[in-house]
């Protein structure tokens, strides 16, 4: 696999940075690829717009930041407005459809939608919306394997919430396996 650039974006507090960290760890430690995780840094990571970048590659990653990410995961309209215009042709965009309405100006970009926040609420805690989204991401893109992602998630979350997070991940993953791009 050549260099693949990913971006996760949303509001501070949604667990966007944690999501990026988990994907990077799953890819590098458990899938044995090279991965570099970078994050927006400063007041925006504590509220406001917030973004994480992950570069995954079979060979060492030189330039650490995503330049034109092929995969964009967005969980806020503000982030969508900011990053959707930079999508490359044939890119893949994953959205929480209750929170984001994409502009769809580039018709070659495939958009996959999930109610991640609503599903998290139904599981009992809205806070695991990012984990639902990670499951969805793994199911749709296959960039990170199911088992590696699950391991990385369970290592990153508090012990008492492991079942909740595992359910969140599996639900998102199942949904992702069946998902079709929006027409």
């Amino acid at each position: 696999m050549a260099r693949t650039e990913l971006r996760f974006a949303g509001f501070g507090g949604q667990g966007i940075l944690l999501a990026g960290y988990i994907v990077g760890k799953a890819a590098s430690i458990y899938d044995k690829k090279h991965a570099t995780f970078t994050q927006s840094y400063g007041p925006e990571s504590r509220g406001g717009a917030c973004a994480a970048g992950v570069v995954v590659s079979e060979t060492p990653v030189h330039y650490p930041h995503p330049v034109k990410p092929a995969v964009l995961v967005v969980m806020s309209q503000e982030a969508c407005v900011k990053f959707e215009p930079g999508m490359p042709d044939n890119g893949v965009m994953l959205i929480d459809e209750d929170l984001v309405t994409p502009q769809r100006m580039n018709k070659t970009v495939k958009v996959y939608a999930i109610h991640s926040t609503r599903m998290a609420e139904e599981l009992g805690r809205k806070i695991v919306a990012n984990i639902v989204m990670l499951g969805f991401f793994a199911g749709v893109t296959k960039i990170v394997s199911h088992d590696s992602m699950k391991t990385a998630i369970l290592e990153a979350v508090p012990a008492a919430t492991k079942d909740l997070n595992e359910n969140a991940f599996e639900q998102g993953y199942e949904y992702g396996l069946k998902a079709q791009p929006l027409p």
Partner: protein
Amino acid sequence: METESGVLTGEHFLSGNEAFGEGALAAGCRFFAGYPITPSTEVAEHMAERLPQVGGIFIQMEDELASMNALLGAAWAGQKAMTATSGPGFSLMMENLGLGVVTETPCVIVNVQRGGPSTGLPTLVGQADMMQAKWGSHGPYEIIALSPSSPQECFDFTVKAFNLAEQYRTPVLVMGDEVVGHMTERVVIPPADKIERTPRRTPRVPPEKYLPYEPDPDGVPQMALAGQGYKMHITGLTHDRRGYPVISEEAQADMIGRLVEKIRKNREKITEYEEESCEDADVIVCSYGISARTSQLAIENARAEGIKVGVFRLIVVWPFPESKIDELAGKTKGFVVPEINCGQISLEVERCAHGKAKTILVPHAGGGTHNPDNILEAIRRAAA
């Protein structure tokens, strides 16, 4: 797997700033004094969490002047000690860095460089403290500084820095930058028994025969620690080999001569770099830290255009690999030096090339990394 040695053996997904801390612990550091400052704060946070787990001490001091002094005190009490800072904090440490140099106190200072001068760009990258690392404290002296390009190197080079500090009895600087400090990658930490740790060079003579600044053959004196029963006078004033202040031209010549020569005479042993395809290169890109990574795309593109590009990456920046640059200058048309400042290491490259090859600086004022196109354009000019 955690061991009593404090070594977090295994594969981890760590930020550069966390890796600085783990490198220090692996090297045997058990004392950290600092004042949190962006973008180095995570080093202090990590040490605050980790040091108590291994029986070490973390102190948040009132400022960076005191932090640097606490480091020196801890070293004289026998500890391996580290601090981490950035920009304005590094400036504040300069006075007592000089005290560390003149009292020949082993310690490690991590500088996660941000945009400057002054408060500058707290959250954004810079590489403009490289000459400050060399000359930041007043007076004539030599220093050792390293520059990591990845979290793995933040770990490895911090271990190296502690060992160099002990071997040459000097403060050693690890010149990171905001991008490397904040990026997270795989860091492989070896088993504790595979990590080289240079011990303190304590006296091999009884107290009555001990001269605190009488050097060993390599120019480095033995260091008695508080509580070992040796009498010491530790001063920032120029001192003789007994450690007593002597305000004279002769004492200065003797002391400075030794301080400078212990680094210069061992230059070939201390310097370290990575070279790739330099032997028959039209152009050599010489860089360090994050700029060594951002250069790679430009290098690949230039090679695709048929330009033979060599890569020379500094690992130890100070002392500078003078003879190596001189040798390469005889074989290449030019050096391209991308750095996030307005010309610092490029000046050293130019000086050491002795006019045999041109040196082209690719400057950047700070706040971001180079556009690879600017580096590519400089490579083309150098090859022309």
